[in-house]
C-alpha cells in the first residue's frame, strides 16, 4: 500500500533523474527542437566564424585554403580596418559614458517622486522602441546641408555658423554617435529607474533624517547601491556601441561623404567585406575580432556579478 503511494508520488513529481515517459516525450518534442535550433543558429556559427577566420573562403572561389595568420596580419595593414577600428573605439568611448551619465541623471530626477513620472518615462523611452531605419533617416534630414536641415536652421536662428554635419567626417561620426545615444538612452533610464525603485526607501529616509541633502543621498546612497545595475548598463552599452551598424549604414548613404569610408565602423566593415566583396574568410576574421572584444566584456560582466552576489 505504502509502496504504491510512494510510486504514485514519484510518478507525480518525477523525482530524481528519472523522467516519466510522458515527460520524456514532452522534452523531445517541445524542448529538444528549440535546443537544436540554438546549436544550429548560434553555437555552430560562432565556432565556424573562428574556423573561417583562418581561411580565404570566398563565394567566388571554389578552393578554400587554410591561412594560419594571414587574415589577422592583413587586418593590421588594412587602412579600412584601422579606420573602422578607430571609429568603433571612438564610438564606444563617447557613446557609453554619455548613455550611462544621461540615463542615470534622468532616472535619478524621475525617482524624486515627480508628477507625470510615467509620461516623462514614456517620452524618454520612445526612441528606443522605434526602429533605427526611420529614426536615422529623420536625423539625416535634420542634419541636411544648408538651411534645409533643421540643425543648421536652428544654428542660424541663434546666430551661429553652419556646421557641415554630413560633409566633415569628424563631425559626421559625432553626429552618428549622437543618434545612437539618443536612441539608447531610454533603455538606461528604465533599467536605472527600476534599480532605484528596488532600493528600500528606508535607506534614503535614514540619510535624510541625518540631515543629508537630496544630492548627498544620491551620491552616497543611490549610486553605490545601484552599482551592479550600472555595471550591467556599461556592458550593454559597450556591446551595442561595438556592434552599431544601421545608423552608420543609413547615414553614409548618398551623403557628401558618399562612400562612407571615413565613418565606417567594425560591423559596416564586416558587411562590406562579406556581403559586397564576398570575402567571407576575411569578414570572419573581423567578426572574430568583434566577438573576442564582446566576449571579454561578457566575461568581465559575469565575474563582476558573481563577486557582487557573495
Amino acid at each position, binding site marked *: 500500500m505504502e509502496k504504491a503511494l510512494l510510486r504514485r508520488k514519484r510518478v507525480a513529481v518525477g523525482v530524481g533523474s528519472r523522467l516519466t515517459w510522458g515527460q520524456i516525450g514532452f522534452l523531445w518534442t517541445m524542448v529538444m527542437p528549440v535546443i537544436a535550433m540554438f546549436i544550429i543558429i548560434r553555437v555552430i556559427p560562432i565556432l565556424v566564424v573562428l574556423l573561417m577566420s583562418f581561411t580565404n573562403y570566398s563565394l567566388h572561389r571554389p578552393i578554400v585554403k587554410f591561412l594560419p595568420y594571414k587574415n589577422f596580419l592583413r587586418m593590421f595593414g588594412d587602412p579600412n580596418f584601422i579606420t573602422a577600428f578607430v571609429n568603433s573605439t571612438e564610438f564606444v568611448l563617447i557613446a557609453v559614458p554619455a548613455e550611462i551619465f544621461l540615463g542615470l541623471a534622468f532616472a535619478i530626477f524621475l525617482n524624486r517622486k515627480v508628477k507625470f513620472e510615467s509620461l516623462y518615462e514614456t517620452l524618454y523611452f520612445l526612441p528606443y522602441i522605434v526602429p533605427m531605419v526611420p529614426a536615422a533617416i529623420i536625423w539625416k534630414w535634420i542634419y541636411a546641408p544648408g538651411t534645409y536641415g533643421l540643425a543648421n536652421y536652428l544654428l542660424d536662428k541663434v546666430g551661429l555658423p553652419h556646421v557641415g554635419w554630413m560633409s566633415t567626417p569628424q563631425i559626421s561620426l559625432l553626429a552618428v554617435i549622437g543618434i545612437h545615444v539618443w536612441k539608447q*538612452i531610454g533603455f538606461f533610464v528604465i533599467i536605472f529607474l527600476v534599480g532605484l525603485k528596488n532600493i528600500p526607501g528606508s535607506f534614503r529616509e535614514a540619510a535624510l533624517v541625518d540631515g543629508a541633502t537630496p544630492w548627498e543621498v544620491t551620491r552616497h546612497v543611490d549610486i553605490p547601491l545601484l552599482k551592479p545595475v550600472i555595471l550591467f548598463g556599461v556592458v550593454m552599452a559597450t556591446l551595442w556601441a561595438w556592434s552599431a551598424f544601421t545608423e552608420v549604414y543609413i547615414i553614409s548613404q548618398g551623403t557628401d561623404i558618399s562612400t562612407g569610408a571615413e565613418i565606417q565602423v567594425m560591423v559596416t566593415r564586416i558587411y562590406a567585406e562579406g556581403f559586397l566583396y564576398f570575402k567571407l574568410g576575411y569578414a570572419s576574421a573581423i567578426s572574430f575580432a568583434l566577438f573576442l572584444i564582446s566576449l571579454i566584456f561578457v566575461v568581465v560582466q559575469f565575474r563582476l556579478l558573481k563577486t557582487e552576489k557573495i
Partner: protein
Amino acid sequence: MIKRHLEKKLSGRIGLHLFLGITSFLTVSPFIWVVFTSFKPSNEIVTETPRLLPAVWTLENYLKLPKVAPFMRFFLNSIIISGVSTFCIALGSAACGYVFAKYRFRGKDFLFGLVIATILIPLQTYIVPLYLLTWKLGWINTYQGMIFPLIIMSSGIFFLRQNIMSIPDTLIDAARVDGATEWRVFFSIILPLSVSAIAAISIVNWVYTWSLFIWPLIVANSTEMFTMELGLMYFQREFAVDYGGIMAACVITLLPVLAVFLIFRTRIIEGVAFTGIKR
C-alpha cells in the same frame, strides 16, 4: 522660515519639471517635426524659413506612396516575419521554461548553460556563417531564410523559467495524479499561469524583429521580399530629394510600433527592464 523652506522646495520642484520637461520634449521633438512635415506640400518643406505647422495641410505625400513603392507588401512581409518569429518564441520559451523550471534530469544544467551562454553575443559577430548556412540551404530571399535565425531567444527562456518556478509544484502534481498528460499540464496549467510573462517577451521580441535591419538587408534581395525597414531604406535612396514622401514613409513605418508601444506600454517597459536586469 517655513515659508522660505517651502518656497525653496517649490522652486526646486519647478526646476525639476523644467529639466524633465525640456529634455523629454527634445527627445521626442524629431518625431513631432516629422509628423507635421509629412502633411506639408513640398514648397513648404524645402524652404529657407521652415515652420513647425503646415500652412496648407495635404495628404499628397501619403497618397503617392503606394504608387512609387509597394509599401503594403513590405508591411505584410514585416508582419509575417515578426509574427512567425514571435509565435515560435512564445511557445518555445514557455516549453523550455517549464522543463528547465520543473524537470529534473541529467544534463539539464548543461542544456540550460548552452541556452544562456550565447545571451549577450551580438548577431553581427556570427552573421557570416549564418548567411553561408542560409545560402547552402537555398533559403536566400525566402521567408524561411529571413525568419529562422529569429525563432530563439535566450532571455525569453530565462524569463519564463523564472516565472514558472513560482508556480507551486503541488498544482502540477495534483494534475499529474489526476492523470493529466504533460501536454495537458503544459497547455492547461503552465500556459494560462504565465500569460503575462509570455506577453512581455512576445512584445519585446515583436519590437526587436520589426526593427531588425542587418539580417533582412543581406538575405532579401528582391523588392517583393523587403520588410518595412528595407523598403524605407530603398525608398529614401531612390527618392533622396523627395523629403515629403520620405517623411510620410517614415511615419507609416513608425506608426505600428508606436501603436503597439502605447497599448502595451507597461508590459514593454517591464519586459525591457527584465531583459536588462537579469540575474
